């Protein structure tokens, strides 16, 4: 049953307006989409990062649900503890209602510094959803490269220089790393396809055991584009097959949206200032390599889906 925008607009945002996110912030849109599904009986555990900083400047908070932030690398461990306490107190009859536990972190807090805590929590099988809002760099500290930063991207620690043309490594495929834990539900989503994203959140929260959603979250400041283009850029990432929308449910891959006529990845790259240097003649090979990798990964995903049928 698809979500109805008209109905959703009547609900009070649980991620309240008034927070200090930049204009056109992709992650802030993602927060609202997640919370619209999760509802009020939800505890959010947050990692240090953009969304933490902009949403809870004391004495204000944008969170209309219980929220706990402890540090950068441990959102999964903290929510493990909250969930363990819930189980213990429920057993003792001190609490009865069903509560959703959601850990949220950026790509820095997930792909890099938090991957150990995430892996441990997945392996232990806590009943929680982990959402990574992937804006592809350490935006909170001022656009430094992360394990999620794509090939060729300019960041302040992988600057496009005269000798080195931005980041020289491909990004980690975190969704597959997580799926390899054999958890019941892992997915990739984009705020441009909000219904798909929200369906995935719903499914993830209904899952017994750990669930994970990796959400592409364009950042106008770090990707160097104009703030009104956030959703367009997110959509292009899907339509160029850079960011496939899919899910892995009980080990089975399913692509949830297949662009009828995929666009060349160049169309996504050219919209963003962080890739501008790639269009110089001497760097064109990076775009070709980028396209090759995107094709290869899409083909692999198709094969995984076929093998799942």
């Amino acid at each position, binding site marked *: 049953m698809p979500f109805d925008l008209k109905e959703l607009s009547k609900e009070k945002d649980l991620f309240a307006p008034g927070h200090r996110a930049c204009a056109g912030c992709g992650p802030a849109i993602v927060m609202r989409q997640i919370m619209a599904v999760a509802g*009020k009986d*939800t505890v959010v555990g947050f990692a240090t990062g953009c969304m933490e*900083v902009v949403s809870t400047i004391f004495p204000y908070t944008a969170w209309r649900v219980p*929220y*706990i932030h402890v*540090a950068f690398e441990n959102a999964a461990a903290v929510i*493990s*503890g*909250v969930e363990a306490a819930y189980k213990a*107190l429920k057993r003792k009859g001190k609490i009865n209602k069903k509560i959703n536990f959601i850990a949220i972190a950026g790509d820095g807090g997930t792909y890099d510094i938090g991957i150990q805590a995430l892996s441990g929590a997945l392996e232990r099988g806590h009943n929680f959803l982990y959402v990574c809002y992937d804006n592809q760099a350490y935006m909170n500290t001022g656009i430094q490269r992360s394990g999620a930063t794509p090939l060729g991207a300019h960041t302040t620690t992988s600057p496009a220089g005269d000798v080195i043309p931005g980041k020289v490594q491909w990004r980690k495929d975190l969704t597959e790393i997580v799926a390899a834990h054999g958890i019941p539900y892992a997915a990739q989503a984009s705020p441009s396809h909000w219904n798909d994203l929200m369906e995935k959140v719903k499914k993830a929260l209904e899952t017994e055991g750990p669930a994970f959603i990796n959400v592409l979250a364009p950042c106008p400041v770090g990707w160097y584009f104009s703030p009104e283009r956030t959703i367009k850029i997110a959509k292009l990432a899907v339509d160029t097959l850079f960011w496939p929308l899919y899910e892995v449910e009980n080990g089975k891959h399913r692509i949830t949206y297949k662009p009828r006529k995929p666009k060349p990845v160049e169309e996504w790259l050219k919209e963003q200032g962080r890739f501008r240097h790639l269009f110089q003649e001497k760097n064109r090979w990076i775009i070709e390599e980028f396209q090759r990798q995107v094709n290869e990964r899409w083909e692999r995903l198709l094969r995984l889906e076929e093998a799942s049928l």
Partner: protein
Amino acid sequence: MKIKALTANEAMAEAMRQINPDVVAAYPITPATEIVQHFASFVADGLVTTEFVPVESEHSAMSACIGAAAAGARVMTSTASQGLALMHEVLYIAAALRLPIVICEINRALSAPINIHCDHSDTFGARDSGWIQIYSEDSQEAYDSVIQAVKIAEEAFLPVMVTADGFILSHAMQRIEVLEDEEVKEFLGEPKTPYTVLDTDNPITVGPLDLQDYFFEHKRQEAEAMRLAPPIIEKVGKEFGERFGRYYGLVDPYRLEDAEVAVVVMGSTAGTAKEVVDKLREEGKPAGLLRMRVLRPLPLKEIVENLRDKKVIGVMDRAEGMSGFGGPLYTEIRSGLYDVPSHPPLYNYIYGLGGRDIKPEEIEEIFKELFDAAAGKEIPRVNYKGVRE
């Protein structure tokens, strides 16, 4: 009450079983591993109703403890050395969020070089993290203090670490008087927690960004909680004594009243040093001892009261603070006595690093040097006892 032969690890695990915390999140590390192992067996055998979270690191252990305590659970863990060091970042957060978590900590040297044996460098490294620190002289005290710690933590809304010396206590069997399960349950009562993130009808935000306009006030409040902790520790120690016959305070003075020369010591070495004091007393020498049971909050009043009129004081440090000025306990005691107008001279003896044995004869040598100093002989301010150099 039952009499059992237990190591400190077994005794602390037994205390945890009787406490039956809501959540234990822990990771194995020598020499504290057995605590986690024993507790896992209690869980497996249905002897506790605890939710046991076998985490993938000590950082996650403390992080999960924070999450669980913020959800209103009674929470415990155990660790040692590198494990406590790995928790370092989150120790401060547990304290600042005012969460009553208890750690059973087994003292072990910090790397490098890697070593698994006793010294106090690990917990000294966590001295400024906002945790109450209680050091045990023997396994009985470790057991008793773990039970008291839960009550102290829940009254002060500050986390507490109870320590026992690695191997010397953790792996040595001693005679322990174990309380009845019901006695422990009654002594502790229902868990008291400051707030909960599980009340979704009254949502709260825990751990917000706190800038120049409020951070200082929050830190000031945390410091005030620590300042107010000593009477709570004393009250709980007294109540424990009234119920079970073993009384505990902030410090443990031994034959100190009429002593002219005193040593200050922490942990299991106090037992050895008390023997030496007895021997010296038999020889007619006015020797005494002050054992620091609590290091944080620093029992300043007790330091002054017990040491102000001594002729000479020797501070025994089982840690090297790398200050270039002596060990960490030495600088604390020295600072504590600054307010005494004609404070006695203080000498520092760093000993026992990495589990190096400290023998009664060596403590006797320390006393001899201190008596020499009292008689006017010049001795070095900072000394290393039992090292080859």
